[in-house]
């Protein structure tokens, strides 16, 4: 019925998600980690929209994806503010330097 199978879209979402996770684990730059988070969220969003399109979930998937976008924007703003503070306190954006909470 459709031009593209749902599974391919989910695969793209999975690629985005995995890339985000790898980004979070490998980037020492705080901004990089934020970018990883955005990728993860986008992967999830893609899944929501895909389900909205391919299943009888209907508009709800799109609504949720809109919420995710908004929350991601808010999160980005707060996270950047935290990153700025981190930078102010440590004179670097290297998250490996912020290990004061180690056990």
């Amino acid at each position, binding site marked *: 019925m459709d031009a593209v199978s749902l599974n391919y879209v989910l695969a793209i979402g*999975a690629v985005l998600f995995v890339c985000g996770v790898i980004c979070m684990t490998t980037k020492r730059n705080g901004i990089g980690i934020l970018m990883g988070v955005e990728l993860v969220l986008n992967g999830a969003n893609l899944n929501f929209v895909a389900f*909205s399109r391919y299943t*009888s979930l209907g508009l709800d998937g799109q609504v949720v994806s809109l919420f995710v976008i908004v929350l991601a924007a808010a999160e980005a703003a707060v996270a950047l503010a935290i990153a*700025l503070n981190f930078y102010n306190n440590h004179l670097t954006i290297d998250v490996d330097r912020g290990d004061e909470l180690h056990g």
Partner: protein
Amino acid sequence: MNVEQLLFALFALLTCAGAISVVICQNVVRMAFSLIVCLASVSALFFLLSADFVGATQLMVYVGGTVVLLIFGVMLTSSSTLLQIRTSPAEGFLAAGIGVLFLAVFSFTAWSVDWDANSDRIARVTAVDVPPQGYNEASSGNTVRPLAMAFVGLRPDKGGNAAGYLLPFEIISVHLLVVLIGAAYLARTKRRVSADTQNK
């Protein structure tokens, strides 16, 4: 292979390339550019999935807002020497391994589900009425009006009694306000702590 499939393949490739590029690049600015490419491609995929409003929002909020914000962050926090902070190759390999495993898990999960049967089951449960004139299915594009109706609590697409999103919408709006104020408070200029006390 029709045009839609072609476009999907193109944007899927762009998306994956952008994402992988974000992972691989060590320069923050390049990472940001790759992210723009990736997110823009995702918005294109949204359009292809006939989620026109979500795609437009994705384009405006992410590509036009969030990424700009990220670049501002890069500029505010980076001096030239610190633009590249390298990780050890071992960590990279480990992360790659984990990533591959993750991907395998997800793919296996996606392909092991019979989506059509599932969709029928969900349809039985939710019992969609015949939508009134002038309102489109989620699968048929032009979703601005139904989305707006859903946000103010009306669900003509699913019958009058289906759940709307007025309360989450309000909460999200208040949440945004709080977040903006909080972010502004956190990011305000403070007295710089002297470098030597922090680098001990």
